């Protein structure tokens, strides 16, 4: 037994510890930002640069929240990048046609529908999700190519959104959407039966079943919830970029790299901080690092990603200090 003695108000103690840790983390980020600012000769904390960083963290944060639900139930879906591409197309097509209702509903509808469809495939075919995900990614990429919207070349396709419809990609709207997303994700993940059932499913499928949790229904709910976040990510991504580029050959998986890095970092922190809260913090950390590397003229692409990879490993080592056993 841990102990046979009772303790005073342990839940309050836990919340207090989480709050203290979050404050420490934010303080560290602020100190790091000041150091970065000195290194870059004042460019890092320039208001324009801050706006750039804040604008760019929103859509990957939504995708990362979607991943939180997906990973919590023990599944992996490699077609999310392709879904974002199709969701972005839908945002533009419906937006250009119907205005703002089309912008919002188009992306959310396609994102949710496709992710939900994926989870139907996982639930009913019993194919390992990472295999099914790759197959679905190839189908979705082909579908995007097949749409041939404003086709310019054989390999590269893009679709452009009307500039007047891109408000959600700008401050303060993008940050307001982010705040709403945080509250919704936190509540669904931590304070709803479906959120708890999703986490139970990832923890132990057999126990969940024995406790009367409907496995198929829960899986489909994951598809629906993750899909909503991914659909919204498509809307914001398109609102920032204005156009979507896609190549075939599973390159849509690239779109998942940053959100994945955010979730992995958040998983390292989740021992001390709720993962839903950790996601936007990690999102800021990662984009701040990329921004710093760009400002100090580190070539974008491979070298920056190598820096990010090294950072993730270093952060992981620090975060897992004191963990017993193998950390998967």
């Amino acid at each position: 037994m841990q102990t046979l003695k009772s303790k005073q108000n342990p839940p309050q103690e836990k919340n207090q510890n989480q709050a203290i840790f979050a404050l420490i983390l934010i303080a560290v980020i602020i100190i790091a930002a000041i150091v970065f600012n000195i290194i870059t000769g004042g460019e890092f904390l320039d208001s324009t640069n801050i706006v750039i960083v804040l604008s760019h963290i929103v859509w990957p944060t939504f995708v990362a929240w979607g991943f939180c639900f997906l990973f919590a139930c023990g599944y992996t879906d490699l077609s999310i990048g392709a879904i974002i591409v199709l969701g972005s197309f839908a945002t533009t097509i419906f937006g250009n046609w119907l205005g703002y209702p089309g912008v919002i509903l188009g992306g959310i509808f396609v994102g949710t529908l496709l992710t939900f469809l994926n989870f139907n495939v996982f639930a009913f075919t019993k194919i390992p999700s990472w295999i099914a995900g790759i197959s679905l990614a190839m189908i979705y990429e082909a579908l995007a190519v097949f749409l041939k919207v404003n086709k310019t070349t054989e390999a590269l396709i893009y679709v452009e959104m009307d500039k007047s419809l891109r408000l959600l990609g700008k401050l303060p709207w993008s940050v307001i959407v982010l705040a709403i997303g945080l509250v919704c994700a936190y509540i669904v993940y931590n304070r709803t039966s479906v959120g708890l059932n999703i986490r139970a499913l990832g923890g132990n499928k057999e126990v969940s079943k024995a406790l009367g949790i409907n496995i198929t229904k829960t899986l489909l709910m994951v598809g629906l919830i993750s899909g909503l976040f991914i659909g919204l990510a498509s809307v914001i991504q398109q609102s920032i970029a204005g156009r979507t580029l896609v190549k075939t050959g599973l390159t849509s998986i690239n779109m998942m790299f940053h959100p994945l890095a955010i979730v992995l970092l958040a998983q390292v922190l989740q021992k001390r901080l709720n993962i839903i809260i950790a996601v936007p913090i990690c999102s800021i950390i990662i984009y701040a690092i990329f921004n710093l590397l760009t400002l100090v003229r580190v070539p974008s692409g491979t070298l920056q990603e190598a820096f990010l990879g090294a950072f993730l490993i270093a952060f992981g080592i620090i975060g897992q200090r004191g963990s017993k056993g193998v950390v998967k």
Partner: protein
Amino acid sequence: MSADIMLEIKELNKYFGPTHANKDISFTIKKGEIKGLIGENGSGKSTLISQIAGLYASDSGTMLLNGEPYSPSSPVDANNHAISIVMQELGVIGSLPAGVNVFLGRTKQFTKNGIVNLKSLNKAAAEQFKKWDLPYVPLNKLTDGMMIETRKIIELARALSVEPQLLLLDEITQSLSMNNRNKLYELINKLKSMGRSVIVISHDVEELIHITDSITVLRDGEVVGDVISNDTSADDIKRMMVGREISGDYYRDDMKPEYGDDVVVSVRNLTVPGEIEDVSFDVHESEILGFCGLSDSGIHTVGKAVYGLLKPSGGQVYLNSKELVIKKASKALRNNMAYVPKDRDNEALMIHASIHDNFNLPSLTELQGSIGYLSPGKLKKLALEMTNKLSVKCTDIYQTMDALSGGNKQKVNLGRWLAKDIKLLILDCPTRGVDVGVKAYIYSLIKEAKKNGTATILISDELTEVLGMSDRLIVMKDGRVNDVIHRDEDFTEQSVIKVMI
């Protein structure tokens, strides 16, 4: 049907493919009756209560609950009929807090406008712990990393929270230390006094006779005996279970500590913060050194720390023959030490791998050729030899571990170390969840290892086990060594309990 009968089972049958797991099972349980269910591993006990709990559907036969036909479609359906279960192998969800685990699958009662009120949920969970006088568990803490005993307590709280008229307990006592075992006995008595019934599965014959009103014995899926506990003896039960007399040399019959002068391992001032403090002892060649204590005494931590699985903040484990300090499990393994943990499914075995792989894994270094090549013939030979030597009941050596019964899993778990030249064997609750036949066999293996000069650290929650097997017994309390008792001294349960408490 008599009004005082709660559950009547008539000619229940259950098949798993070609295996006839339950054959025409019939028995009744009265209101307020405590019934024991016993049988060898694989005799069909868990299958039977799984049908009562709605985990499996029966293939034929009927069940009557309070005179009404009862055929639960799921565990939730069984809960709705006031029947709940604590399973041997199931468990809790590590990624969720303890409080949520108590009400998982039933969180809707705390939900308003779609939001679960965790404060109310934790309060209700705490009330269950208080109502049934269960040991304290931090309800807001994730169950991941909690000890097996704590996890069982949470499962028990979960089962009790459905206010069961019939509670099914599948081998949970062997996960509990002595003090919590006593608490469970008190709980069972309380349920009885409330007119509720309990079915207890245990491999501890004496325990079952002590706590139950009646005992049903299963063998090869059939009921072979239904006896009143007060009118029976442990030997009668054992005979019914295995269909033959069980020989008397279950434990050691000598009362003299016998071991060599050479110290194999010296442990000095070993400290793991919050778990054990300043633990020092020597273990000699051919010695069985027992460890016992209450639930928070730290006995299980000693095993892990000596083997290098836990990093101590102070002290050291010194391997005398090689004059080196053991700091890591890999070093311990390389230097002829072995560790058999209490939680065999999660910490010892590769549960989804084959018997072949599990037998070979600890011996790969010895089996590999000069360039590191592992000959499939050699691997197969070792697995076959050990399977036959230990009489592991299986279809073949490529059967996966999760398909084996608890006793057969433990034979593989322990036996794979005995295939090596081991100098120090650390056994943590080696007979947890195994029947009397396998138990006797495991004791014979420990005695054989002693005869071959192996030093053994035997950690156990069962006092009779450490008293029956040890040369010396270290009694721990609050993470410290409280006393060391030799086999030729006052080596009785009473004297040990006095030191433990």
